[in-house]
């Protein structure tokens, strides 16, 4: 299908920990690709950097130093552009044994540049929905007005009445019950599920090329969760919109994803076609992916614990990232041959079979 829609290369997003006077390496070299019309799902434990990756793409991070390096190539009909274009002019990195130890950033210049690039993109070419839809909608504005605003901002429909018709169309499209009534409701009168439908309607109403959904079902009742997932699946096949879906819930992922990226400690440790990553029989797997799948909770567990898989041990501290493989402390597949490598050197992301990448010393050469 030609060049992919979005290509993230070696994205790094750091924050500053005041108390520890050190960097929080929230996203530390993320590489992934989203093909046109396909859903890439990002999975990983809490704190692995999934949300920060999404917010970095949208240029929505306020805490410093924020995005410090990388390239995000976004290809639309209008051509190809780097969403982090000219970033290097505003950031200077100080490295020490291949590690970034110092960042100086012209925050104001950087902000201006981000706003310049993203003004064309946010809401129009890339739309985003979040978890906790009730707080994500503006409580002071009617649901209808919030959708109409997006339509008038990003589509040729400018006339209020036409925009309203268009909003109603989208409310119907997301199967909102009694859309005409809901149009005039304020968010507080709506359930979480209805709010998420409204958010989805708002996001899709500008017909973006990419939808980023950060845990869109977290915080909703289990039954509502599965209807929202069903809705997303339907919209995906009807509209063919590319999606970056962040989720804890392997069941959600397996229903929607074409590709899966597994994140651990701020990096992608494995990514490739969903059947290969999630399938039980496929042999080549990163030990972390295998552990994640093995700890996949039963359906009952999911409802009780919110779908968080439990793997023994602790996720690496993003402030004090281990030198070698980030999973080393918890890995049960280290052999004597590779132990030294695992402990000292971070493995690279290697393509094992076409489109399937793994970051582990067990594989390759």
């Amino acid at each position, binding site marked *: 299908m030609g060049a992919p829609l979005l290509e993230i290369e070696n994205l790094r997003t750091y924050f500053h920990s005041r108390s520890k006077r050190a960097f929080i390496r929230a996203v530390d070299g993320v590489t992934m690709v989203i093909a046109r019309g396909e859903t890439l799902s990002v999975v990983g434990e809490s704190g692995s950097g999934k949300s920060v990756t999404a917010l970095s793409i*949208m240029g*929505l991070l306020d805490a410093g130093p924020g995005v410090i390096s990388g390239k995000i190539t976004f290809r639309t009909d209008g051509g190809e552009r780097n969403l982090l274009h000219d970033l290097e002019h505003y950031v200077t990195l100080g490295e020490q044994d291949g590690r970034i130890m110092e960042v100086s950033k012209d925050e104001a210049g950087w902000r201006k540049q981000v706003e310049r690039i*993203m*003004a064309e*993109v*946010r*809401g*129009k070419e890339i*739309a*985003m929905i*979040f978890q*906790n839809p009730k*707080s*994500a*909608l*503006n*409580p*002071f*504005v009617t649901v209808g007005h919030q959708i109409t*605003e*997006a339509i008038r*901002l*990003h589509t040729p429909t400018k006339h209020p009445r036409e925009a309203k018709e268009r909003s109603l169309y989208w409310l119907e499209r997301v199967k909102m019950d009694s859309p005409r009534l809901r149009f005039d409701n*304020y968010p*507080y*009168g709506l359930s979480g599920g209805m709010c998420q439908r409204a*958010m989805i309607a*708002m*996001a899709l109403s*500008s017909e973006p090329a990419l939808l980023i959904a950060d845990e869109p079902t977290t915080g909703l009742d289990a039954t509502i969760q599965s209807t929202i997932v069903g809705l997303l699946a339907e919209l995906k096949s009807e509209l063919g919109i590319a999606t970056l879906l962040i989720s804890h819930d392997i069941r959600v992922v397996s229903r929607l994803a074409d590709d899966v990226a597994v994140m651990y400690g701020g990096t992608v440790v494995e990514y490739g076609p969903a059947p290969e990553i999630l399938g039980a029989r496929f042999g080549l797997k990163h030990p972390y992916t295998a552990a994640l799948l093995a700890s996949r909770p039963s359906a009952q567990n999911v409802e009780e614990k919110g779908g968080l898989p439990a793997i023994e041990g602790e996720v690496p501290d993003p402030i004090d990232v281990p030198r070698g493989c980030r999973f080393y402390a918890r890995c049960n597949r280290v052999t004597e041959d590779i132990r030294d490598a695992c402990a000292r050197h971070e493995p690279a992301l290697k393509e094992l079979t076409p489109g399937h990448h793994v970051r582990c010393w067990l594989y390759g050469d």
Partner: protein
Amino acid sequence: MKLAATKPITLVLARELALAALLLVGVSFVVFVILYLSPGDPFSVLLEGQISNHAARAGLREALGVPRTWYVQYLSWLGNLLQGNFGTSIRTGLPVFGEIARVALSTLYLTLGSMLVTLLIAVPIALHSSVRGTTALNWLLTMLAYVVSALPVFWLGYVAVYVFIHQFGVFPLTARIAASSERTWPFSLLPIFVLGIGNGTVSEVVRHLREEMSRVMGEDYIRTARAKGASVWRHAFKEGLLIPMTEIIASKIPFILGGAVIVEQVFNWPGMGRMAWQAAQDRDFPVIMGIAMIAATLVRLGSLLQRVVYVAVNPRASNERRGAAWAE
């Protein structure tokens, strides 16, 4: 059924009105008692050195129809007030209402003008620093605002009078600066600026607005607005600016009125503050009571404005109010 159909704003108004009535009665009672307990009475001030005979004085009181016990006095004052009669000034013998009305406009002009000055200074500083964080510029501006705010308003007033009037000879100081007179309006800017800048209001408005705006900027729905490419200001306006602004203004009205008393003294401004000052010295109790009533009404009006804005703006509050009315 009936209540559910009532507009939430109407309910708020009704509730506020009832509260205001109670409050006014309370304030008038307290002020009256204080006046009664404080030494001196209008007759000794008025008749100073004229009639020294105690019996003659009592006779005069009787002749003027002043009842003896304080609560009878109070009740008759209250009764008159309910009929719209504020009584007559002991000093001038003119109706109190007319006396106050004559000067109320210039006080309104002074206080509203000073509020505008305060907001024009405070809002930009607050908004800038809530969005940009602490930059050198807004640190400097904030510090300046805090320092100036900390200056007592009488001191600032005297310095302004000295510098502008005695040094530069502008703003000729006369007792007859009337806000309504067209030729003299520039003279009125000085006291307005002094009251707007001093009095501690600027720093508190800055602080409150900045806190609220920063909090709102961190809300999920603002992130959504940014993600959809909409104007953050438009989405943050109601909760981040409109509501906190009415809150802080409403809570500052008593301080602004208090400041006005001082500023009117310093600048010889013919307003209610100066009249209150004069009346206090004369023990002119109908005037004092009248001004106290007006001041209390203004304070109540401020909080009414705040409630109305809050309910009008916040869909949830308007419905809760409706729900509460149901329960009552």
